[in-house]
């Protein structure tokens, strides 16, 4: 044993209580984050719980080929992308705009109240949000339709309309999370150099120009980082939200990768096939994060890592 490694062992031994402290956490990550990664191998097998991981037959990329040649694949891909693109276009900028508005307010009761109110929905579960949505939008009992009918118009089907389902999801996400999303941007805006504002004001810039030329460039790196992370999630759609809002009338536009994995994997027990779908999704997400991070760095921005 060399001197250096003996030294290392002494150091490890000296810190044994420190390792003991981290042990439950490390065990957790090994069992619940890394053991499942090992479980990915079943996507290349015909896994059955009875034969187990070790004895199941290897089938190579069969499940992947089967999935890509399945007409469902196109539907899932289209739905997932459509929902995420809508989110990227409308839900992603919403907290930035909202933060710009809030940033114009001086600290006081009004600002605090607005913040307290718009942060609140973040803490409500999707079950509650779904329940409230039904109560508001149902065709027979919903308060919005009651209002529409009392004004003399025919009632509108918000919840069972294939054409507007994606919009409904986007609006729900905005109601729930846009306010909460402002916090990170407000924090970033607070660190923009006040001298920049003073200088621009002397040059005669109005509030819009200040926002466009000073505030937004000042928080550019935060926006970039969140955008990169968002791109990594582009194959994910908030599972609980879609699962709860889905109904027979909209299933052709509502089924996304995650709900499909749940239905095929858990309900029908096709473990290998559904793991393959999940793996495809995770790999695409990882590639997107890496690509987005690279291009951000090439453009001279700070990346995520």
């Amino acid at each position, binding site marked *: 044993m060399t001197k250096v490694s003996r030294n290392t062992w002494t150091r490890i031994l000296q*810190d044994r209580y*420190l390792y*003991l*402290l*981290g042990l*439950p*956490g*490390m065990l957790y*990550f090994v*069992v*619940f984050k890394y053991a*499942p*990664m090992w*479980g*990915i191998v079943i996507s290349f097998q015909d896994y059955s719980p009875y034969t187990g991981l070790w004895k199941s037959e290897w089938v190579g990329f069969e499940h992947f080929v089967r999935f890509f040649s399945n007409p469902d694949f196109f539907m899932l891909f289209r739905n997932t992308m459509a929902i995420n693109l809508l989110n990227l276009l409308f839900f992603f900028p919403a907290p930035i705009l909202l933060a710009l*508005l809030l940033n*114009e*307010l001086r600290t006081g009761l*009004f600002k605090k109240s*607005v913040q307290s109110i*718009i942060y609140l*929905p973040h*803490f*409500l*579960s*999707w*079950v*509650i949000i*779904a*329940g*409230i949505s*039904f*109560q508001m939008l149902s065709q027979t009992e919903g*308060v919005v339709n*009651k209002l529409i009918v009392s004004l003399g118009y025919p009632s509108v089907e918000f*919840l069972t309309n294939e054409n507007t389902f994606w919009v409904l999801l986007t609006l729900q996400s905005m*109601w729930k*999370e846009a*306010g*909460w999303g402002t*916090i*990170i941007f407000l*924090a970033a805006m607070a660190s923009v150099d006040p001298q920049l504002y003073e200088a621009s004001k002397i040059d005669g810039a*109005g509030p*819009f120009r200040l926002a466009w030329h000073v505030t937004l460039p000042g928080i550019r790196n935060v926006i970039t980082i*969140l955008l990169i*992370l968002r791109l*990594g999630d582009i194959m994910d759609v*908030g*599972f*609980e939200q879609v*699962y*709860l809002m889905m*109904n027979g009338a909209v299933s052709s536009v509502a089924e996304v990768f995650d709900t499909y*994995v749940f239905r095929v*994997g*858990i309900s029908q027990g096709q473990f290998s096939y559904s*793991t393959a779908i*999940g793996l495809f999704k995770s790999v695409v997400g*990882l590639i997107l994060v890496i690509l987005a991070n690279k291009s951000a760095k090439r453009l001279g921005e700070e990346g995520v890592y």
Partner: protein
Amino acid sequence: MKRRASEKIYYAANTCLLSLISLITLFPLYYVFVVSFTEPSEFIRGGVILFPRTWTTISYEYLLSTRTFIRSILNSGFLATVGTLSSLIVTSGLAYMLSRKRLVGRRVITLLILLTILFSPGMIPNYLVVRELGLINQIWALIIPALSSGWYVLLMKGFFDSIPESLEEAATIDGCNDVGIWLRIILPLSLPAMAAFGLFFAVGYWNTYFSAVLYINNPAKWPLQILLQNLLVDPYMAGGSEGAYVGSEQLNLPPEGLKMAAIVMTTIPILLVYPFLQKHFAKGAMVGSVKE
């Protein structure tokens, strides 16, 4: 500073817009609250009710008299207390370990934890691990697999990073080992931060829904959110999941008030901790806005 007229209009418009947004956020919640207290006959008559003529607590009385509702409140309460404590211990222990710069293997372990944020093996492998461990249909299936997350560990590590190592040295001389230092010096020092993380964990456990769909089939072990789903969502779903519906038909109560009362009761604990949460939003926002 003197303001131009155009700027005054701008600020007035800004205030109006923000008031409108607040109103849009608040109205559904207010409506839920009102309907939950509305006399059933008044609701049946229809129309938009903004303020009921007669207030009644009949929906609440009925809900609190059903055993299913009470049982699921207890289940979720168990999750929120035992789960939160366990999460805090496990996460802070690991985060503290990783924050000590002298530790051998610190960088590798941190990197491995970062990796779990960037890549997830997916729903099915996670499910199979939980099943192999024999946790299906046990309330622990809602706690143990959710004990920690890469984000929480890294955030907490960031917090512990700011505690100087010189603080430990004094304690080491006094003959304390690292566990003792953690218990007697580090944790008491970081109580406010632990409270913040704890509140976020607690809200997470209280809102546990999907893992219960995955792991719990036994109605006696359902958390509140599953019961809410049966009550609120399933009636709208063609062929939703079967389950013990909190029967209201036999009582001739319109389910609307009952549903809204259930929402209010589920939200009350969150509203109670909300003022305490608010102080720590900046910390939690990193978790919340990044990982959603």
